[in-house]
């Protein structure tokens, strides 16, 4: 390919900046790689200025900042956007009623009502996506946002199942985010009482044998016996873990203890929709995990959560998952043991467990720097943050997550999305990520337009595998989009996490391609 003299000399000037990856050491001896490591794992990747900040305040101070999100003010523009989202969105009670009304209309009126129902669901999904993604991208409380991702997957609900379509946003806001760095028992309790979980794992249908609804107008009167789904996942996924020392008998008994835990949008008790319905509760005697359980109504379930939250098996299970998320796909067993110990001695204080994790020699070990393969969620967020792109319209990002196989709130199974390389590394993943990188780098994602417009919910054009689509589409898109991402700034932001080899290829490529190469590089697929 022939370049004019002007282009060539321009490239040579640029290359000096591009080829300067040498890890900087600040005067007090902070290793740039170590600084990047904490940024990569405690946040969704460095944004412009982040690396300089950590180099300045030091790694310990940065970790401490992140462990205390309440001390970090939310910047004015973000809090304004969140406030307007908050005032625009309906309460869970209103949403449930709107959803059921729409369902009834579909049954009786057909196609027109279907369009209205679609509009409702589209609006609700977009609001949930905005609340999640704007905070994940722009909040200075990055570790809290990272933990929201972690805990949502741990206590996963699927937005494609019935009522949960309209409940995921409140589930995250009320049951996950406030407890992301709090005590495990509080988090467990909040998820157990939330209608999104009660609906998703069918506990609202679980009733004492022989229970009959009498003239009860509660929707879909299908409650016809014990449903073990929630009880099973509560032990297998949420607390003890699959090898946590329980058997089928314990599942059945726990399900019996949880009968009557349901929700009612007509309830007048404040904001919470949870109700305990004693008529549905199985008051018989039970034996569970080797313990005698005497009849106690709702208290049986509350006590069961206490027991589960304080089990050593739970401490190990949560610790393993945290270490896998923050350190390595196969975490070092001694680290897991130490974290489990910390979990038990602090009564499941998540902040304390994380402090131990981040201080551990395993977390700090250079071998684990850049060792995790990003999930699509981490990949998309870190790309946006590195590019320093302002986002007002999250639709292209929701579309990108769909295309990359990780739709937001779209994991069907209760075990949530995995965060391991084995789960995400595939030929499809690589080519689609490169497609996304080039669309973002070329300014072809409509991130600034009004939400729900311009970008569409699926940026099919932008994500055309390799990315560019036809030349006609590229012209159209560049008119609507943003200026291309500046590769030099990108490389400064990402520092030595981009290797010398990648920098060399970038420097030798056409300027228009450079940012796409950085974001689509093997280095940036990892963190």
């Amino acid at each position: 390919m022939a370049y004019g003299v002007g282009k060539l000399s321009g490239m040579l000037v640029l290359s000096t900046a591009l080829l300067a990856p040498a890890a900087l050491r600040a005067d007090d001896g902070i290793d740039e790689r170590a600084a990047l490591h904490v940024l990569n794992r405690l946040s969704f990747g460095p944004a412009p200025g982040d690396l300089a900040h950590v180099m300045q305040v030091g790694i310990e101070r940065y970790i401490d900042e992140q462990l205390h999100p309440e001390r970090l003010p939310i910047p004015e523009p973000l809090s304004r956007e969140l406030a307007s989202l908050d005032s625009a969105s309906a309460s869970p009670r209103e949403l449930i009623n709107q959803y059921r009304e729409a369902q009834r209309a579909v049954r009786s009126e057909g196609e027109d009502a279907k369009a209205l129902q679609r509009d409702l669901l589209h609006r609700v999904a977009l609001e949930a996506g905005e609340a999640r993604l704007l905070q994940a991208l722009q909040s200075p409380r990055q570790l809290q946002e990272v933990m929201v991702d972690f805990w949502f997957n741990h206590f996963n609900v699927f937005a494609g199942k019935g009522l949960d379509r309209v409940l995921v946003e409140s589930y995250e806001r009320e049951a996950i985010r406030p407890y992301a760095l709090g005590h495990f028992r509080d988090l467990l309790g909040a998820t157990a009482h939330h209608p999104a979980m009660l609906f998703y794992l069918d506990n609202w249908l679980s009733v004492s044998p022989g229970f009959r609804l009498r003239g009860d107008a509660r929707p879909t009167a299908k409650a016809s016996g014990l449903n073990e789904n929630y009880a099973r996942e509560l032990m297998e996924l949420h607390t003890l873990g699959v090898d946590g020392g329980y058997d089928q008998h314990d599942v059945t008994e726990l399900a019996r203890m949880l009968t009557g835990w349901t929700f009612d949008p007509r309830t007048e008790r404040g904001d919470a929709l949870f109700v305990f319905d004693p008529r549905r509760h199985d008051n018989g005697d039970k034996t569970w995990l080797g313990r005698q359980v005497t009849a106690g109504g709702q208290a049986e379930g509350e006590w069961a959560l206490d027991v589960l939250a304080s089990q050593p098996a739970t401490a190990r299970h949560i610790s393993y998952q945290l270490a896998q998320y923050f350190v390595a796909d196969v975490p070092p067993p001694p680290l897991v043991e130490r974290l489990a110990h910390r979990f038990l001695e602090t009564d499941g204080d998540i902040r304390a467990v994380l402090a131990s994790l981040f201080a551990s020699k395993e977390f700090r070990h250079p071998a684990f720097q850049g060792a995790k393969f990003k999930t699509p969620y981490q990949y998309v967020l870190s790309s946006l943050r590195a590019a320093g792109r302002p986002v007002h319209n999250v639709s292209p990002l929701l579309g990108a997550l769909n295309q990359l196989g990780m739709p937001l709130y779209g994991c069907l199974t209760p075990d949530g999305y995995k965060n391991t390389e084995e789960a995400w590394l595939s030929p499809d993943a690589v080519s689609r990520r490169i497609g996304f990188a080039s669309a973002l780098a070329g300014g072809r994602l409509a991130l600034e337009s009004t939400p729900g417009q311009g970008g569409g919910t699926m940026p099919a054009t932008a994500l055309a595998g390799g990315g560019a689509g036809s030349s006609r589409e590229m012209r159209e898109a560049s008119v609507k989009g943003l200026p291309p991402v500046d590769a030099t700034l990108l490389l400064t932001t990402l520092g030595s996490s981009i290797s010398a080899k990648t920098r060399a290829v970038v420097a030798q490529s056409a300027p228009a391609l450079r940012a796409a190469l950085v974001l689509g590089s093997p280095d940036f697929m990892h963190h």
Partner: protein
Amino acid sequence: MLRRDFLKMAALGGAVLHPCGRAAIAARGAPGDAGAGRLVVVFLRGAVDGLSVVVPHGEPEYYRVRPTIALARPGGEDGVLDLDGHFGLHPALAPLLPYWQGGRLAFVHASGSPDPSRSHFDAQDYMESGTPGRKTTPDGWLNRLLGALPPVANPAPLRALGMGAVLPRALAGRQPVANLPLGDRATRPTLLDRPNVAQAFDRLYDNDDKLSRAYRESQRAHKEAMEALDPARLEQEMSAADNGAPPAAGFPGDAARLARLMRQDEGIQLAFMAVGGWDTHASQGAAKGQLAGRLQPLAQGLAELARGLGPRLDETQIVVMSEFGRTVRQNGNGGTDHGHGNVMWLLGGSIAGGKVHGRWPGLDSPALYEGRDLAVTTDFRDVLVTLCERHLRLADVRLAEVFPGFAGRGLPGLLKA
């Protein structure tokens, strides 16, 4: 959350072929050896009304409980196309009648899932995971089937293929599979088709680690699809073999495209397509109307697929299935609600055609499931097990991997002796 609607999927499709799944490096692919069985699954999302597909016109009860949406008896105006004196085919499915007459089309009535769920989400999930009642199964039955098929020498990235915007649950899992967008997006060139761009990325991904190998695999699969779907070649083929172009949009076009791909690429052994829009709670219609309007292109597409496969139809078993059936009795809005038993359609392959298989439980009240729905007398897995075992020649021991925990032995007489 959006309905998984076929048209929407078509509209939202990505633009290039991507192999999905993990460990795509494993040496698997082209079966190559002639006569290896192939399987195409067409999933009707939203629960199609099976009683309007294969109509029990011999049952007075059918006409009693469906006063305005029943299809007329054969011979009448807009009547069903008689199959065997008891059942008849919806008139919109006329394009498929020649296959019935030629012994290439069969049905299994009163089939479905043993799980009682009437939730679209749960029921589709169970049917695609192949494990009714179990929510934590991580992979789909087609993906496990791919892993259980005898390995072959030459890796072919397209051995298992999904068509649609996203990878279907049935194909998700450890085995590498390909996903092909619908419509003309399948052949749209990408940035990586430009030599200078590909060259730069090739250099970034020139290591021997998993990531670099995955990158090279994706490039290879993309080239293979572009070649198979080369527009110039397609045009030539269409005028020669297809006697005119297929309709521009929707299922018939995509079915014809799949046929062409399968004819050209012998390595494709499993394929999955989904078609939506069957949730007819209101104004379902009868010989004309909403449901008929959707059955018509479906039949046309299936006929395109069969015709496009030509002599390959013998080795290709096409299965049409849906998550559950609909209520026997029509509701107050001229529609039907979520039910239980349904009908599975079987076209081509080794099927013993011209027959409605399974045990028909009847529509009289005592025979109904929970007093309202067609009962399930054949587990859908019995049908699939039969196809896996006999048509795909899967060893007994591997069957348990595809349908773990299922003890059924298949459906006798389903395939040609």
